[in-house]
């Protein structure tokens, strides 16, 4: 395995990575370290995890973080209701007679009552290629959960007090993403390899669009990519990401547009700009200017 082969594998899945990102993925797999990805929304952080999973054939296990997420939702939980029903059923059939409390309790904390959540599933993985654990938008979770992740990500093990320690036979490929709504704690970052995902350059973006929207004309893909590059330079409130470029191209292709023009661009602007203020700003600057910039950018 080498960074180049990683890059080719990802490209085969329709994900065009630059040399830095391919090297980061290579190192994450080679060194067995989690990979922390930061970058603007829509630059393809989540897509990367999907592409890695597809290229290695491992299962993609996704953990979407949110405020208030805790171990019982991310790691494991006991199926309390089933435990209770089991106890009542045992009582009703008389199976409890003559047994010690300890043995009954041991039966209640059996693995069959254990609800495996994303992290435990990624660690307690027995056969097949290593799964890919995607911990998405970790900046949304709170500090306690980050502290818990520290333990999991440094040793790749989970301790369930009633059963014992689950240890990963082969560490999963872990990808963490953050949109930087707040700073993730340094201790967590220290356990990870770090990569800042940039917006792709024009050539790479054209290639991405052509892969993801094959039905669009080459001229159209090129012009849309150039137009988006122009929009990104406009200091918008929410600069469009690659996802928006793909959506825009797909929308125009569906409308049968072969060349970007002012009318079709204005009609489909909603696929690429998600704030009214941004749209107003672009319209006030002139859609014609945008189209002209796109044509000249594509021509170069």
């Amino acid at each position, binding site marked *: 395995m080498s960074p180049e082969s990683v890059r080719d594998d990802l490209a085969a899945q329709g994900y065009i990575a630059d040399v830095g990102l391919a090297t980061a993925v290579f190192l994450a797999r080679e060194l067995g370290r989690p990979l922390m990805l930061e970058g603007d929304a829509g630059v393809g952080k989540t897509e990367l995890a999907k592409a890695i999973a597809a290229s290695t054939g491992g299962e993609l296990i996704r953990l979407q973080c949110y405020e208030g997420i*805790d171990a019982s939702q991310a790691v494991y939980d006991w199926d309390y209701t089933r435990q209770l029903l089991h106890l009542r059923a045992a009582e009703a059939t008389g199976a409890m007679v003559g047994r010690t409390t300890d043995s009954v309790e041991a039966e209640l904390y059996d693995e069959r009552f254990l609800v495996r959540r994303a992290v435990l599933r990624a660690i307690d993985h027995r056969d097949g290629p290593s799964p890919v654990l995607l911990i998405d938008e970790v900046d949304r979770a709170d500090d306690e959960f980050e502290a818990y992740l520290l333990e999991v990500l440094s040793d790749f093990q989970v301790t369930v007090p009633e059963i014992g320690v689950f240890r990963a036979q082969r560490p999963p490929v872990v990808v963490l993403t953050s949109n930087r709504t707040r700073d993730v704690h340094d201790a967590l970052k220290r356990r990870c390899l770090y990569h*800042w995902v940039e917006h792709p350059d024009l050539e790479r973006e054209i290639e991405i669009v052509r892969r993801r929207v094959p039905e669009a004309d080459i001229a159209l893909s090129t012009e849309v990519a150039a137009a988006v590059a122009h929009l990104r330079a406009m200091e918008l409130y929410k600069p469009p990401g690659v996802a928006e470029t793909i959506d825009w191209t797909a929308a125009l292709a569906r409308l049968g547009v072969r060349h970007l023009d002012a009318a079709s661009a204005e009609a489909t602007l909603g696929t690429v700009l998600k704030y009214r203020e941004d749209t107003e700003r672009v319209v006030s600057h002139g859609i014609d200017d945008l189209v002209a910039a796109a044509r000249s950018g594509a021509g170069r």
Partner: protein
Amino acid sequence: MSNATAIAVAFVDRLRSSGVDAPLSASIEYQRALGALGMGSRDAVYWAGRTTLVRRREDIAAYDTAFNSFWDDHSAAPYEPPSAAMSIAVDDEESPDDDDGGLDGHDADDAPSIELRFSAAEVLRHRDFASYSDDELAEARRLMGRLRVTGSPRRSLRLVNGHGSRPQMDLRRTVRAALSTGGEPLQRRWRHRGMRPRRLVLLLDVSGSMEPYARALVRFAHAAVIGRQRVEVFALGTRLTRMTRELSERDPDAAVARAARAVVDWWHPPRRRPERVQPTLGTARYGPRRHGRDSVRWLGPRRSEHAR
């Protein structure tokens, strides 16, 4: 220690001296990454370090500089690092007291530049209050009236219903829910510690040179007092005057008028500067001693920024 290791360690050292915090563990990772990638190409060496030694986007520029200067000392080949400069739109709340005194561990240079981007509000943000026309002042008032000062909350001791990150069993509600399932507690109920806003202490400089700003500041303080709980506002001229009570009136104009009457040294040139404000706030005169500990304090505006 091999030659390659020595060079790598020297590079980490150079990086540290340019202000990037690279702990020992990162240095070890760097060695491993170099081992995996080899030192055959500049790209490999560059990205081995970028991935393992840099953990913040802000450090990338420093890394590039250190990389260039370090490796150019060792070999003459010029290297252009991949360009990293790109403007980012910071989607941040527009509340001026976002910064709670560095409690989040934000560095000063880490703070996102807060800037309103749209419509007339942008003009207002960059203008000095001193040069406002009446129309603009009315617009500013309207905006401030809509402003709600929040700041970062802290965890309170009071328990609220729900399953937070550290839930505690709520026996009373669990038993009540069990009544509907024949006495079996199939559904458990939880409580967890809620959040409450930090105490916010505003110290407003209303002395002579600040006169053009004083009204605007008081409007801002009024928005804070009306918008949330646990706010204390003090006017700071030649003496400290508590204005919280005066500003708790809902009508902004009436509140500002009352505040102006309460502050005796309003708009007079200072003859002496108050030297020790902190002890006054800490005493039992205005609330508990904890004022100093868990509160967000905001002193504004700073004289150096706005002095005429």
